């Protein structure tokens, strides 16, 4: 990917990311998040990681965000729009994140590793390789992830059901 495209998509992603926080309208916020995910997918394409890019669009920008929007529209969130910014909280948050960015910049200025190009990976079958890794060498974390999802599902049902039997 040409560096120009990288900068365009990275900048867009950040702009939409800020939009998620700043928008008082929850639907606008959620749509900004979709846009930010799409830009991230574009960055993945730029890294030749097509599989992750597709999954990013399908799962996050598609399924998860549709669900998000449904929930937001089902709930009455007008209260949120009327809320005023708490200036002290905004100033505090800005201070913390500026401090973090400053530290990041200081670290990155001394950091030369990023300028060395990676050796190109031989042309491989993306999906096949991910499948092989997940189900052979990385099987144990995958199984534990399965348990994690089971627990999350149980939790959602327990916490959202109206009457528990």
């Amino acid at each position, binding site marked *: 990917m040409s560096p120009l495209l990288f900068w365009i998509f990275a900048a867009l992603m950040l702009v939409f990311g800020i939009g998620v926080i700043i928008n008082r309208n929850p639907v606008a916020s959620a749509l900004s998040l979709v846009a930010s995910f799409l830009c991230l997918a574009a960055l993945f394409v730029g890294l030749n990681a097509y599989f992750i890019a597709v999954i990013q669009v399908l799962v996050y920008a598609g399924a998860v965000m549709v669900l998000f929007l449904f929930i937001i529209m089902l709930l009455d969130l007008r209260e949120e729009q009327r809320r005023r910014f708490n200036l002290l909280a905004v100033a505090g948050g800005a201070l913390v994140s500026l401090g973090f960015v400053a*530290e*990041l910049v*200081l*670290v990155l200025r*001394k*950091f*030369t*590793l990023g300028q*060395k190009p990676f050796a190109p990976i031989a042309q491989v079958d993306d999906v096949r390789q991910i499948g092989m890794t997940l189900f052979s060498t*990385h099987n*144990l*974390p995958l199984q*534990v*992830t399965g*348990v*994690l999802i*089971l*627990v*999350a599902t*149980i*939790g959602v049902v*327990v*916490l959202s059901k*109206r*009457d*528990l*039997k």
Partner: protein
Amino acid sequence: MPAPLAPLTLEIVVLLLGIVLLGFESFSKGGDRGWMARWSVAILSVVFAWSFFTTGDTGVDPSHAFYCADPLALFFKRIALLTTIIVMVISLEFRPVLEKFIPGIQPGSGTGEFFALPVFTCAGLMFMASAVDFLLIFVALELVTISFYVLVAYMRRQNASLEAGVKYLILGALSTGFLVYGITWIFGLTGETNLARITQVLPSLLAEGGRLHGSESALLFALMLLLIALGFKVAAAPLQFWVPDVYQGAPTPVTAFLSVGSKAAGFIVLARVLQTVVFLPSIAPKVLSVLGLLAVLTLLYGNLAALPQDNLKRMLAYSSIGHAGYLLVAFASIDPAAGNLYRTQTAIGFYLFGYLLMTLLSFLVMTVVSRHSRGDDIVHFNGLSKRSPFLAFGMLIAMLSLAGIPFTAGFYGKLLVFSTAIARQNFLLVSVGIITVAAGFYFYLKVVSAMYWKEPTEDQPVTASGLTKFTVAALCTAIFYFGIFPQSLLSMLPSDKAAPVAVSPAPHK
């Protein structure tokens, strides 16, 4: 003699127990789900006994493994199992309160998951104890945290519980973000996620002409992110702001579980992560001084903020921050020249085991008393010695051990921790520690004085089930036994004399 079993079977049995419990629960008639807790106690006890017959050898080269079973891992697995067993006993006593605050259609309905989820949490804690790869560390940690999100918010008809759940969810997600970002940095620097391989490649990367030469600040940055995330898990100041509200709002058995299980698992992960970097001469002093600062802050905050508390649950929350401080003292006193962490590992292992006994004992007694007095303020304990001399005695032992009276497990734990600091001539840490121990005496003995020297506000006797009485008696005995004969516990922990059975990434190979 039967052949020793592979260590992973322990986790598999625990996970199967959780799934089978859920399966039976969905077909069971009637409201009472107490059998789930009793079955868990029975089977987890069997797994606990079983853990003494497993081999430490997983049959996989540690530098290609996700999972190890060195003595330290097995010891922390036992801590997780024992914690879960006692939490189940506390949950049984807690049922009447729980039923009041969940929207069940009949008494007892809806409590099933409250007894099944801790079993999954236990499995997660056991995986964390064994994880030697950042991938497994992350997945196991998330398994534990997500089940805690649900358990903390379980009493959803009570606002305090919901508020605690939301606070824990938001701050927990933030700390997870820091953890993942830190892991990403480490992976970007070293190209590895396995802790043993990271230990192997770091010296050459940092050496003259290595890829990281001159930019060790990137490594320090990654470590800072990991420390923030793990500091949140173990409730170290200044990352402890969530603790008092979450501990007070959560259902009492969950608070007990959080304050022991979550902390123990956080500390073993911290020990494993530090092991990768603490022997690098250019990194060690900086990391150790940050740990020392965290220790001092945590000790002072936890113990001084506990002084004015009137609510026992909140006081125990601050006290759990304070105890995290003592454990951090042992980390800040790591000797980079020693080549291993045995001294610190032994100190934190013993301390956490003693902490388990006394904290769970106090939560168990508190659950019984607050059910009868309808509240967990210290006032509700007034004159407990007249209402139930046995429970008052149990609470007395717990408080004395938490304060650190000689001949209790709590005393010997503190002794071990301070001896690591004295060995490193870290007198600042020792003196701050002694000041905070003195502060601890004040607020722990406040409870004792309420129980023994105040007149009871109610005269109705406090009763407990046979299982609870047995557990209280067993915990009291254990506190004294391990306080007087610490050697029986120390022999299970790694030491210089007996080399660990399996994995302990040796940096100088």
